[in-house]
């Protein structure tokens, strides 16, 4: 608790004690009216002096519908009508409610910022006097910093010395540690687990990944959602409406009674009007809705999903159609050997021969073959490597002449080759002029891609569409494999934009279309979609800028996670809106009929607020 909160707590304790004494005294000696008034005024002022002061300020600044002013009018009115006990108690409960709210919000604010606490506040630098801690803002780009085991890397850079494993959970939500050695790029916000490393910084502190993320999440409030707008508009009309209602309630019924010749009963009607004022504060709504969004955004960011504002949470919750790019989103975007077919020898040996032949080439396909071999080629076994541009290579391996390349190479050498029925790049191999089989190289589907699509369906997405620049023949098998509903191939970036526009025009008015891409090539599509999601954005500022929702790592399952967070937040928001407005309306009705008094009004008010706040905090927990 802060000092301010502790002070309020003491005021509450003291005034509760004094109210009990007052009760006991008035029961024991039944003091005269004026003595009773004086007695109750002591705890009233102890608990309410700041409210009264703020109410006076409000009058000076012409802020009449300020909750302090309303509370002051309600309690002073009650006391003036001789209901001292109610006056003091209402003020007391109001303060208890405010204290609870302030503590609860402070707590969740702290737990959310702990989740997002990515930036260390010092950096270790080696100087003549040994290792010193300095302010991260003062570290220049290109300086060498030291990160001890257990510390967070403060600034983006490259490891120059030391081998370690890194915990990137704070950025990506991925709990498996990643090994890193000299030359590896490291992002700020990751935790150095095992060894001491030296890092040469490549960015300033304020431009580093962690600082960027913090800035983004903290500024997420700027994009206010419809629900938040609704609540602030509601609050703007609700309070004045209730106040005018109170005035009408205080004046009209007694006048009507006078006209009909019965006693006006001013006191009872004014008391009912004051009860209205107690219910007039929309606190529960005003506090709980931004709290829900903040908790949802905070909880999601702890899982490696950044949402740039509550407006996007809201549109994400209405997403029924998800379009996504293939390469890099659902596939790894790197070429790997997917199979060895029709081999005349053991598959490993054929792969070995191909790797040896390609050992001089820097082509990505050559590199993927060498990588699949798992070891560096023994160059002594190869001689007479000759590259035939656009076709492949020929070489002599272990004394046998080998040709490794595409169909054109085979045709040129007059070798009868077999076509491959799978999609991908095919590398044929001929040994001594005889066909020896082929290697299929394909972009690998991410291991979680299938799960990602089914998770989306579970989260209520009706239509999943794959949009890709690749040929349909390559795209359709991938789409079938992962379970996407529709697939469109051979699309240029502008075609993708047009496709997304078509999807947007085909959906219901209330639904939204999300597009998931890698954030670089797909930036225009991400911008055009109702919700633009960038994947694998760790270390890419451009992607973070372009998208509404950013998935830090490469895992497509997180798309569904983001959707679930959004749904849960919106559900909590609606629950709170319905619950709080419902209870207030019931209290207003009961108050007007004289069934509910001030006691019930204040209990309902504080109770609704407590429940709504507790409900909001649920948004922080994400499965």
């Amino acid at each position, binding site marked *: 608790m802060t000092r301010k909160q502790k002070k309020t707590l003491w005021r509450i304790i003291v005034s509760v004690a004094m109210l009990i004494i007052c009760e006991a005294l008035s029961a024991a000696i039944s003091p005269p009216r004026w003595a009773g008034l004086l007695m109750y005024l002591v705890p009233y002022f102890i608990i309410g002096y700041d409210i009264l002061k703020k109410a006076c300020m409000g009058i000076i600044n012409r802020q009449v519908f300020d909750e302090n002013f309303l509370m002051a009018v309600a309690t002073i009115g009650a006391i003036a009508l001789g209901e001292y006990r109610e006056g003091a108690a209402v003020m007391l409960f109001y303060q208890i409610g405010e204290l609870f709210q302030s503590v609860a919000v402070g707590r969740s*604010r702290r737990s959310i910022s702990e989740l997002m606490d990515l930036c260390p506040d010092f950096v270790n630098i080696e100087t003549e006097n040994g290792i010193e801690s300095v302010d991260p803002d003062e570290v220049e780009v290109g300086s060498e910093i030291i990160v001890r085991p257990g510390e967070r890397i403060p600034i983006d850079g490259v490891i120059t010395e030391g081998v370690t494993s890194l915990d990137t959970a704070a950025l990506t939500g991925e709990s498996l540690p990643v090994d890193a050695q000299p030359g590896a790029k490291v992002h700020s916000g990751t935790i150095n687990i095992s060894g001491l490393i030296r890092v040469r910084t490549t960015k300033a502190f304020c431009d580093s990944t962690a600082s960027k993320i913090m800035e983004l999440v903290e500024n997420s409030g700027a994009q206010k959602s419809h629900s938040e707008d609704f609540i602030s508009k509601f609050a703007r009309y609700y309070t004045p409406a209730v106040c005018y209602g109170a005035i009408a309630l205080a004046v009209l019924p007694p006048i009507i009674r006078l006209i009909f010749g019965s006693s006006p009963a001013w006191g009872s009607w004014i008391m009912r009007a004051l009860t209205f004022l107690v219910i007039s504060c929309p606190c529960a709504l*005003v506090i709980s809705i931004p709290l829900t969004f*903040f908790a949802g955004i905070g909880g999601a960011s702890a899982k490696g999903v950044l949402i740039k504002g509550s407006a996007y949470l809201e549109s994400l919750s209405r997403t029924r159609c998800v379009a996504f790019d293939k390469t890099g989103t659902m596939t790894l975007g790197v070429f790997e050997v997917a199979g060895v077919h029709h081999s005349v020898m053991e598959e490993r040996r054929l792969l070995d021969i191909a790797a040896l032949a390609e050992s001089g080439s820097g082509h990505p396909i050559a590199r993927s073959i060498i990588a699949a071999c798992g070891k560096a080629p023994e160059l002594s076994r190869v001689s007479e490597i000759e590259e035939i541009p656009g076709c492949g290579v020929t070489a002599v391996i272990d004394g046998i002449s080998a040709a490794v390349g595409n169909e054109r190479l085979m045709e040129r050498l007059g070798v009868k080759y077999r076509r491959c029925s799978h999609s991908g790049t095919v590398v044929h191999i001929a040994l001594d002029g005889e066909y020896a089989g082929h290697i299929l190289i394909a972009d690998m589907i991410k291991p979680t891609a299938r799960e990602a699509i089914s998770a989306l369906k579970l989260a209520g997405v009706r239509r999943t569409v794959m949009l890709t620049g690749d040929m349909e023949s390559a795209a359709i098998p991938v789409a079938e494999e992962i379970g996407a509903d529709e697939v469109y191939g051979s699309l240029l970036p502008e075609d993708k934009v047009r496709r997304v526009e078509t999807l947007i025009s085909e959906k219901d008015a209330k639904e939204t279309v999300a597009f998931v891409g890698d954030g670089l090539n797909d930036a225009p599509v991400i911008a055009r979609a109702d919700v633009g999601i960038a994947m694998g954005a760790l270390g890419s500022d451009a992607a973070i800028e372009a998208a509404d929702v950013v998935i830090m790592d490469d895992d497509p399952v997180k798309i569904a996670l983001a959707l679930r967070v959004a749904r849960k937040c919106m559900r909590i928001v609606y629950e709170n809106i319905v619950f709080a407005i419902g209870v207030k309306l019931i209290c207003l009705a009961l108050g007007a009929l004289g069934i509910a008094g001030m006691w019930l009004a204040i209990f309902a008010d504080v109770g609704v607020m407590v429940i709504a706040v507790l409900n909001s905090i649920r948004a922080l927990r994400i499965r």
Partner: protein
Amino acid sequence: MKKSYKIDVDCVNCARKMEDAANKTPGVKSAVVNFMALKMNVEFEDGADAKSVMADVLKACRRVESDCEIFGI
């Protein structure tokens, strides 16, 4: 020019009042208060001096919410 300030304020409503007050202060193009993050993001008019404008903003905020605070002016 945009700048971000840490603030301290008790309730959402008070934060909204601060936002309104800041937006009405001359020299401020737009101001957004994020109660949850306790931050005020201010975009200044071209050529405005951030320091003196923020002093006015604080004064305006204090008038509507006596116990608020803006840090790092």
